[in-house]
């Protein structure tokens, strides 16, 4: 029984880490504009996430080292430093986007302007990092995040043309009236929204926080095999729910409230409560995860004591970095930049930076002296290398596509 509970906790972490503001915005944008013709991008990204998530869990369990410890040891100080700087910057941007996202959700619920909520959210994020034990963080936000299943329910109740949805999913093609580069740009955004660098850092550091060892490897594996696909189901149902509602007049989803429209239509206020609770939990969890990831990666690079398993007084530098990140991100959102724009920019830049985190992981998972008999199997390497090639193509194509399509307009 205890084992089952432990397992569900892990699964929920994955769900909370997968669906965040970037994912909510991009999946609903694409659902409303392109129908299900881009669902393949989410499926592809999830498959890659499962593959690399499993590797991250295995490396952490076997070597008892978190991501950036290993990156610096294996790939040298200079490469690791560049890697650290770009990852920290991306995580900071993500953190800013998530804080803005939570504030937007609170604005929808309360009617009070989101900028008033921003400092409150920043404070809450920091309080959670400061006080809430790691396991509690996982459980509370993981469970609440499952409220988003309300989108799947709404989807079933909506007068959807299932045949057409399925046909779009299995026969991806550029819809009429849309240019191919734009369509591809959104495919890349979806991949960037799913494969966020902070997830691997957070997942491996979280494994250390829970003191994973070889015995927990099965648990880690099931976490990735169940958790990430569950996140995919949530994403796809949000995407699909946007199709029947908004497709005819092709509304541009620039507002979180519109994402909840389909749920409101079929399930009324109760549905809305669930949807907003789910939004809040997922985005808030992602905010704490990205803030923690900055602290994790910096502390691991420099060899400081890190983690929520220590008292803050015993890991002071780690907590100072986390606090500084929250302050910086909150300050950035308070400059009145549009949180949705920040989100989209972060997702696109993230897509360009994917190989930075995933390549070192692949290298380490093949290091026999670290991994012993737990090195990658040949089929895993074949899949992982293919995935890495896809990531490289995505990474190279991102910025040209963004400029060519004026960020998908």
């Amino acid at each position, binding site marked *: 029984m205890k084992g089952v509970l432990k397992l569900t906790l892990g699964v929920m972490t994955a769900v909370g880490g997968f669906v965040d503001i970037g994912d909510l915005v991009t999946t609903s944008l694409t659902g409303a504009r392109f129908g299900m013709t881009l669902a393949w991008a989410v499926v592809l990204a999830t498959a890659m996430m499962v593959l690399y998530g499993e590797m991250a869990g295995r490396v952490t369990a076997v070597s008892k080292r978190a991501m950036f410890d290993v990156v610096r040891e294996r790939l040298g*100080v*200079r490469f690791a*430093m560049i890697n650290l700087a770009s990852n920290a910057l991306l995580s900071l941007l993500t953190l800013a986007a998530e804080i803005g996202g939570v504030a937007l959700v609170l604005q929808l619920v309360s009617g009070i302007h989101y900028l008033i909520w921003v400092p409150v959210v920043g404070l809450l994020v920091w309080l959670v990092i*400061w006080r809430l034990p790691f396991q509690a963080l996982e459980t509370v936000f993981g469970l609440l995040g499952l409220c988003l299943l309300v989108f799947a329910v709404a989807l079933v109740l909506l007068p959807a043309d299932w045949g057409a949805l399925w046909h779009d999913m299995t026969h991806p093609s550029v819809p009429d009236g849309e240019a191919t580069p734009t369509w591809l740009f959104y495919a890349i955004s979806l991949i960037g929204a799913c494969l966020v660098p902070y997830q691997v850092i957070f997942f491996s550091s979280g494994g250390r926080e829970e003191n994973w060892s070889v015995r927990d490897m099965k648990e880690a594996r099931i976490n990735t095999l169940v958790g990430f696909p569950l996140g995919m189901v949530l994403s796809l149902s949000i995407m699909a729910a946007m199709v029947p509602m908004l497709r005819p007049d092709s509304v541009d989803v620039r507002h979180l409230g519109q994402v909840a429209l389909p749920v409101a239509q079929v399930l009324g206020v109760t549905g809305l409560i669930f949807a907003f609770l789910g939004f809040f939990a997922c985005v808030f969890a992602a905010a704490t995860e990205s803030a923690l990831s900055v602290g994790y990666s910096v502390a691991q690079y*420099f060899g*400081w004591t890190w983690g929520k398993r220590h*008292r803050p007084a015993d890991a*002071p530098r780690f907590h100072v970095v986390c606090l500084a990140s929250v302050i910086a991100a909150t300050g950035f959102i308070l400059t009145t930049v549009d949180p949705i724009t920040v989100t989209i920019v972060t997702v696109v830049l993230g897509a360009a930076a994917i190989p930075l985190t995933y390549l070192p992981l692949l290298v380490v998972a093949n290091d026999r002296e670290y991994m012993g008999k737990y090195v990658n199997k040949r089929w895993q390497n074949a899949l992982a290398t293919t995935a890495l090639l896809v990531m490289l193509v995505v990474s190279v194509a991102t910025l040209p596509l963004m400029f060519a399509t004026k960020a998908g307009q």
Partner: protein
Amino acid sequence: MREDIVTANDMLLDRQIFDRDGVEVGKVDDIEVTFPDDGGPPVLSALLCGPTALGPRLGGRLGTWWTAIGRRLRPGDEPYPNRIPAELITKFDRHEVRLSASARELPTNRLRDWTREHIVSRIPGSGR
């Protein structure tokens, strides 16, 4: 190659250093090798830690800046990095270095102590 020969890169550089209680001390940013006065072969005399040791290894302008900033933060503008004498090493392998001293007695603890004293311990709940 003999089994008991290791290169610095294989076994020492960038490894995590732990004190005798398993508390993180830092990373092996560089190593110090001394030529004995009696003319014997050079010996590993200390592990070096901190920005002034890491900076030169980063190289380029980034490394120069890193070293310069590290130097400003050192007491008395001392350019030489923190030393962890080799006598304190009880064990090292591919994954980590263990010391016989406590982190509190080592010179690498200044930033840790400063952040604890001036920031973290002033916030309620830091010692829970």
